[in-house]
């Protein structure tokens, strides 16, 4: 009985021992293969995270590029509109300037965000700002459209006014024909394109430029020889059917063959602003004018020596050329 009890105990102990052994072996096996697997997983993980990072970066760059493209397209689109807008901004310059200021600030902010390649967190912000930028461009485009429409309306009004002015004063629409002198004096008349300008109200005609020699008994005789010339005498007629009576002034420029301006005297000659820039004039002529009157004006220029060649007389009113004549002295 006692033997059977000890055999049972022995058997139980053996079973426990075997079980312990199996457990130990299982644990050892697990421990061995787990560490090996962990190493493998670690290396795999490294490769995977690199791949993931690469993929993420590509996505971010693609986003950045697309944002950059949207941004560039928005700016391009806006710039082309801005060019046409800037021509017609007189009346709304202040609000437009404010809008432009906002636009430029926004544009710079976006450019800063897109420039910073390491900061992907702000891409969302950039997307938001580009959206805002597009709204602003749309607003400005709307304004541009309004301005263009206003411009068209004003242009049509101006054409209408010019038309009615030409109807009232047909001579103003014509170009001035200056009197031809005798052929041996080689005086050339030049048509003046500016006289057709609606803002230019004086018409110059009957332009003359004569070279005179003064005899011993103080008589003035016309000559065509430079060496015999003692003074140049000029004359022209001005007419204006539109403006009321007023004091007016014209300036005369006489260019010598070498291109220098022939000055009457330092009290008579000065400078004036023309549509070709600042110029020196030979003499200035002031006169009282009555509407519709044909006003004849004369002047003379005295110089010690006159060179041979082509002398050009120009008449300016309000800085605009209203008459031109050339004369050759042989």
């Amino acid at each position, binding site marked *: 009985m006692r033997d059977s009890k000890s055999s049972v105990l022995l058997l139980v102990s053996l079973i426990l021992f075997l079980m312990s052994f199996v457990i130990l072996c299982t644990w050892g096996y697990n421990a061995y293969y787990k560490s090996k697997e962990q190493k493998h997983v670690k290396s795999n993980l490294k490769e995977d995270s690199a791949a993931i990072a690469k993929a993420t970066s590509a996505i971010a760059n693609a986003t950045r590029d697309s944002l950059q493209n949207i941004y560039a397209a928005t700016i391009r689109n806006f710039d082309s509109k801005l060019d046409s807008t800037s021509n017609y901004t007189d009346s709304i310059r202040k609000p437009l300037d404010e809008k432009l200021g906002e636009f430029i600030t926004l544009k710079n902010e976006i450019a800063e965000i897109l420039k910073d390649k390491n900061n992907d967190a702000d891409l969302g912000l950039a997307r938001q700002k580009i959206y805002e930028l597009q709204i602003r461009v749309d607003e400005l485009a709307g304004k541009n459209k309004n301005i263009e429409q206003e411009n068209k309306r004003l242009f049509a009004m101006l054409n209408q006014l010019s038309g009615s002015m030409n109807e009232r004063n047909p001579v103003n629409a014509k170009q001035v024909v200056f009197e031809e002198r005798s052929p041996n004096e080689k005086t050339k008349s030049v048509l003046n394109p500016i006289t057709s300008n609606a803002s230019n109200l004086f018409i110059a005609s009957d332009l003359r430029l004569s070279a005179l020699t003064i005899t011993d008994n103080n008589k003035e005789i016309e000559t065509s020889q430079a060496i015999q010339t003692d003074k140049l005498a000029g004359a022209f007629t001005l007419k204006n059917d539109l403006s009321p009576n007023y*004091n007016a002034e014209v300036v005369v420029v006489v260019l010598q063959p070498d*291109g220098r301006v022939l*000055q009457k005297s*330092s*009290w*008579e*000659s*000065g400078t004036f602003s023309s549509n070709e*820039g*600042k110029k020196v004039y030979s003499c200035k002529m002031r006169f009282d004018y009555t509407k519709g009157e044909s006003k004849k004006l004369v002047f003379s220029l005295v110089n010690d020596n006159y060179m041979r060649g082509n002398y050009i007389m120009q008449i300016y009113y309000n800085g605009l050329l209203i008459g031109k004549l050339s004369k050759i002295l042989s």
Partner: protein
Amino acid sequence: MSKVNGKYLFLLACLCISACSITYAQNNYKLKFKRSDVYAGIEVGSKGVKMSLVEINKDNQKISEFNILKDTSINTDFISFTQPTFQATLNGFVGLYNTAINNYKISPEKIFTVISSGVKIQAEKFEKNAWVSGFIDSFKLRIKEPARLVEVIDALQEGRLSHLGIVPTSRRYNTFLIDIGSGNTKGGYFPNGNTTDFKLFQLSWGTKSTANAADKRMEDDKTTSNFNKQLYRVLAGSANDEIVYSVNLSGAYNMSDNIAFSGGIAWSVATLINPELLDNPVVPVTYEEVEKFYERIYKNYQSLQGEEIVKGLTDPFLNIPAIVKEAKTVNKVFDQQSLMAGTGLLLKIMRQFEGIYEKKQFYLVKNGQVGWVTAYVEQSLSNQNVAK
């Protein structure tokens, strides 16, 4: 022996060449007219002694065409009436007189010596007439010419002579000449069609006194913008009252078509506003041009400096180095604030003649300081002819 002679000959030749060069250089002024005489005018003014060599055209029956050959001055501050300034002024006066005789070979009868109206006014104010007489006697003694005439001219005479010397005969009776000086402004016109009656115009404001008044109001803020603000206040205040009153009193608005300005500020504005007209002694301007010029002094003074002034000049015939040189001279004489003060005063006076319906022609005379010399010469010569 021959070597020694050679050395002496060489030295002698060098000396001769040097002497010739010096003589040539001394008389090397470029005459403008075919028939002319050269005169010297030496004037003792409030600030110092001034000498002008003037070539006067003999072809003209009436003397009114002249050409300035030299213009020299020595600053001495005579009107402080102290012994050192007395001596300095006397030395300057004698020195310039001897220079005219020895260096420029002008005979004594062609040298005219005067004491200006500025000195006369100050001498009367401080009871220093004896001081001025003593000065004239000392001068005569030093140059050993006891009979020399050194006239003390008054403001009326000076204004009249300047008008006769500066304004051409053709514009004599319709031109109002105004000389803007540093301490005051004077001028006038001939109201009755003769050169005897001269209507005098005077203001107690000049370029320097205006600048000083604006400067006094500036306190600690020495910026140009504050100067501009204070200058506006000066010119809108007591200066304006005096200008309006004096111009109205002169009656010049109705009697004149042309308003000509002379003095340092007229020269500087004319030089900078129209550098193209460097050789012209007179420059016609408009009120708007001078107004724009003032803005340019205030906002873009840099553009009026030396080389900057010629930028934008396209005329190929212009003497660019000469223009730059003259602009630099102006820059030395007038700084930004003085130029603003003078131009502001000029504008204020011009404004009185800028009517809505009737516009006057304005002129800036560059060489007004020698105007009186020509008139004085003409007057003296005609007096001599009458005496003969």
